[in-house]
């Protein structure tokens, strides 16, 4: 085995020493030194690759196509008065739901479990673009006013076997998590508190469930009232 062949193997797989390479190393201090250097580098690589990731940078390394902030009107051409009416129905509906309470413990616990698993979502502060938020909400039957809400986290998450939008919205009451659970049905509002989170499940006008979770023990009626006007259900 030549020095070049030995160094190729060492550099490619530093920790792997077959019989031929071992024989070469036994008689070659230069290649042995090269191996020690590569092993040290590999330890650093392992450390580096397991280190925490940098947060989302303000500047993107990779330039993805960005949709202009002025969003086109929905193709449906829904009259503005109808959208406003739908918004009012949602607000009133949320209030009425407060009085029609029938809990579903597994769903509430599942939501809390999911939010706890993605606890990093609360600490995101960089606003998502309207395009990114729309992408996550597409198909969920709901939109958020981009001008009036700051969304700092928007993901499509696997929940109870379905992919659901999971957003964190900055409100005057602090960050609030929204999950639009189209496949889940609750007969009425359910409130819950656990592990430093407060939440409500409310039936949404599209027949699914809206989960709203906040940190601490805020008045969830206030939270819902703060969110309600910015949520619009698409018929």
């Amino acid at each position, binding site marked *: 085995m030549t020095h070049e062949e030995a160094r190729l193997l060492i550099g490619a797989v530093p920790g792997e020493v077959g019989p031929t390479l071992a024989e070469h190393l036994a008689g070659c201090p230069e290649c042995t030194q090269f191996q020690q250097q590569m092993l040290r580098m590999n330890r650093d690589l392992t450390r580096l690759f397991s280190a925490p990731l940098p947060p989302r940078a303000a500047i993107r390394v990779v330039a993805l196509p960005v949709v202009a902030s002025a969003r086109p009107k929905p193709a449906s051409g829904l009259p503005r008065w109808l959208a406003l009416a739908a918004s009012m129905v949602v607000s009133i509906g949320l209030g009425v739901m407060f009085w029609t309470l029938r809990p579903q413990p*597994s769903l509430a616990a599942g939501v809390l479990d999911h939010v706890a698993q993605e606890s990093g979502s609360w600490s995101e502060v960089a606003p998502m673009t309207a395009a990114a938020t729309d992408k996550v909400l597409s198909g969920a039957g709901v939109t958020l006013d981009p001008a009036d809400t700051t969304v700092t986290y928007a993901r499509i998450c696997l929940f109870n076997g379905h992919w659901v939008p999971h957003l964190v919205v900055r409100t005057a009451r602090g960050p609030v998590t929204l999950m639009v659970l189209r496949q889940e049905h609750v007969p009425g509002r359910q409130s819950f508190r656990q592990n430093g989170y407060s939440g409500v499940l409310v039936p949404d006008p599209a027949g699914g469930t809206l989960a709203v979770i906040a940190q601490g023990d805020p008045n969830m009626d206030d939270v819902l009232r703060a969110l309600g006007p910015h949520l619009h259900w698409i018929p």
Partner: protein
Amino acid sequence: MRNIPPEVPVPLSDTVKPAGDGGTMALERLFASLRPELLRFAWWLARDRAVAEDVVQEALLRAWRSRDSLKDPAAARGWLLTIVRREHARLYERKRLEITDLDEVIAAEDSQLGTESEELVGLRLAITQLPEEYRVPLVMQVLGGFTTDEIARELTLSTAAVLTRLFRARNRLRRIYGLMPAPDGMDEPAV
């Protein structure tokens, strides 16, 4: 399903689902438990947190759709890492991603990390600046735990070509340690 009065805290133990849904729930939890590692893997491929999150998102969607093809849950990690790698490659091809001002970004990110030694900071920067053809096999090997044969199959290269690329990747990183790179003039074996 047990009903409880409103405003009563719900114990997390109530997340137990009906037995018939057990497989799906177990897979969902498995996916969730692997997500941080998938995100780390994707970050080192894409070198950008937001892109990495998008890649993992798409990969998990894709994996979920084809979950029936995962026969052995023990193989889930490698299976998902492979899907992430392919999703990243697909995104790269689709968008023709442009690298912009990489040094500035890495410097900004390093200032946020703050705790790494100067050498590790240099190593991080050097890895992110490696050409794709060297960085991808290195990340697959060290972070993903793939063997050279597995990398060769996945990247449709010969094993010899993968060995050469891995050697060249590490050889370029030697500068970070103040070492001269070894002669690197060998031709890459045919794919």
